[in-house]
């Protein structure tokens, strides 16, 4: 038994962290927001050049063929800096969907281009308020009709994997049958679109029944993203509290602040522990994955929620200004808590995968 990252994984994380620290200072994020940018395109290109965008794509298709846990090192570091790139949409969802459910031809067509970052993918599932998976969009023959909204990163994507009932369909977004409408996103660094399909050309991914597995794998990556972000909030709050004087001593010396951040630290380490286990299970114990992913999801939401809220609270009024950096996380946190299914959804999945209990309604 060895419950730690490998040296290679630690190096990979260090490498990603170093690059991102340099390329994504907070002022870069402010500039992107001010420009109403779709994404941080130079960063995406650079991630592609370093091979990161093929991290989870098999070597035969031009990727690095790394494990889920390796991939998670990158997800965590992207979360730490709030990077404005469609990594989760393109790699963790679209590429993984094609890998899991696609034909050899589809894989050969798309995975090499996704691996370089030349093609960006996105994943469309929601259809407005309410349920995680939409029920309106259906594929008939080679045509797709209906509306998916909101879809993250669909503005820069040329390819969408679209959930249609129990099936997954591959749709090019640069065709006349697809209309994209940019929405006003709560997370100012992750644009969302409404996609209207009117007899859009589409092809099915032939291996059915992969949606649950796809989501299980995706929330593991989201958990690492949340852990990285939560840790960034914790560090930011601690550093600010150490420096800020209040009533003649550092804010960090007050027990209310110490205990608040201790609670956050516990939540972060709990989330990290579950994420480790789920990352391992995603690669090496797929029978464990549904329960492990659900547990990782729940603790990651809790940790990032606490960290994002209390970071702003520790900062006080200054935290409410655009010039401070708390807000990037405060908004991103809701994105990570809600996309891929809320707390309740994953609580149900965890209970359903607990020995001795069965799925329940409501």
């Amino acid at each position, binding site marked *: 038994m060895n419950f730690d990252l490998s040296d290679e994984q630690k190096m990979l994380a260090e490498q990603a962290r170093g690059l991102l620290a340099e390329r994504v200072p907070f002022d870069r994020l402010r500039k992107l927001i001010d420009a109403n940018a779709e994404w941080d395109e130079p960063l995406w290109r650079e991630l592609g050049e370093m091979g990161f965008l093929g991290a989870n794509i098999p070597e035969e298709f031009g990727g690095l063929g790394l494990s889920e846990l390796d991939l998670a090192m990158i997800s965590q570091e992207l979360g730490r800096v709030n990077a404005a790139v469609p990594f989760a949409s393109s790699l963790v969802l679209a590429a993984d969907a094609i890998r899991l459910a696609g034909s050899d031809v589809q894989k050969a067509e798309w995975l090499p281009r996704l691996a370089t970052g030349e093609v960006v993918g996105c994943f469309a599932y929601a259809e407005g308020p309410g*349920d995680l998976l939409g029920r309106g969009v259906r594929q008939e023959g080679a045509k797709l009709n209906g509306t998916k909204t909101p879809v993250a990163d669909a503005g820069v994507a040329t390819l969408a994997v679209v959930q249609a009932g129990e099936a997954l369909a591959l749709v090019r977004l640069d065709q006349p049958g697809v209309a994209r409408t940019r929405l006003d996103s709560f997370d100012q660094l992750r644009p969302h679109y409404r996609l209207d399909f009117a007899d859009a050309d589409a092809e099915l991914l032939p291996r059915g029944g992969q949606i649950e597995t796809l989501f299980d794998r995706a929330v593991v990556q989201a958990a690492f993203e949340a852990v990285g972000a939560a840790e960034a909030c914790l560090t930011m709050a601690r550093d600010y509290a150490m420096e800020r004087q209040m009533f003649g001593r550092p804010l960090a010396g007050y027990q209310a602040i110490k205990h608040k951040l201790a609670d956050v630290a516990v939540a972060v380490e709990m989330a990290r522990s579950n994420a480790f286990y789920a990352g391992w299970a995603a690669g090496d114990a797929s029978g464990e994955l549904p329960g492990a992913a659900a547990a990782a999801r729940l603790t990651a939401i809790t940790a990032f929620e606490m960290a994002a809220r209390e970071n702003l609270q520790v900062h006080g009024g200054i935290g409410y*200004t655009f010039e401070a950096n708390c807000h990037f996380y405060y908004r991103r946190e809701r994105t990570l808590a809600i996309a891929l299914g809320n707390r*309740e959804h994953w*609580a149900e999945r965890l209970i359903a995968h607990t020995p001795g209990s069965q799925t329940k309604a409501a």
Partner: protein
Amino acid sequence: MDFNESPEEAAFRTAAKAWLAANAPQHELPEGVMLDDTEEVMLGRAWQRAVYDGGYAGITLPTALGGRGGTGIEALIFAEEEARYNLPKGPYIGIGLGMALPVIGKHGTPEQIAAYADRTLKGELTWCQLFSEPSAGSDLANLRTKAVRAGDDWIVNGQKVWSSWAHRSDMGILVVRTDPSVPKHKGLTFFVVDMTSPGIDIRPIRQISGASDFNETFFSDVRIPDANRIGAVGEGWACCMTVLMGERLNQGGERGGIENLIAYAEATPRGAGTALDSGSVRMALAQALAEEQAGKSFQARLRTMVSRGENPGALAAMVKLAFARRYQQTSGLALELRGMDALAPPAGDARTREIQHDYIWSTVIRIAGGADEVLKNQIAERVLGMPGEVRMDKNVPFEQLK
């Protein structure tokens, strides 16, 4: 105990209702139109003038100040009835009535009362508050903006933050350090300042919500006549306390938000039903609703105390503390139960945008008017009688603090 209105209160409501019906409609703002700040203030002044002419300006202010000398319940009744109309009301009026006049009334001279009370009640003078500084938020007495005596004037230098509508206010209430050689609470003095004075530079603060309704206000050699001093030199802290007491008393208990969130859950589809079919959603909203109702009843208890001349003190902090926490939790929960759509609702979905805004605004509520942690200290110390914090800065001259 009687939650029903007394005959006097019912009569007051009837009269207010009738007066509003006759006067409010012509002052209502057009639905869905965003006014610019200047225009809004103009309309706000006009409405306040109408209120004054109707005899409802400064309901709880003493008649000596030109107020109505009425009860807190009456003020509440008027506010409830007024809220039925979409009227122009903002901090530029509220700060004058709720902060400036009480402090001038208590600590000011007869001349000062004469100079400001009537004009403020009539909406002729708008006000902003110039207290907080970058290094003086929860620890307000740590403020560094200083005033030095120069003949009949004071010369003020420094920086204030979080002043709402400073750019559209005629006057400001200001607290500054006039003596750095004494411990920090003791060297403060309170002024009213003409916001058009040379040397005042007002810059909007860009907020995380996207709005800029708060400002930074820079003072560079601003001259304030000594006649504008409220209270004695060194009495600034007591004046601030008068202002903050008034602020605390009416926070948090009002907002009827949870019923709206229950309706929002019920309007959110989920499988064959709605998000309100979820037992965990119902449990969370029921607990929040129970707490919200408690807040309303608690406010009523506090108002009853005030109506008898009792001072609720730090009890008032409890309602605000509970509200702030609940506001963040429940608006966050509402976004979750809505699902993906909450992250990027369609343009027509005003309700979801409001809840997004609530979730962001809740961070301000947890900080402003007493941060969570400050309020808990107050409750522990003033309600439960527990010891004060260990103070490193207590008897140290301000200039010797690092």
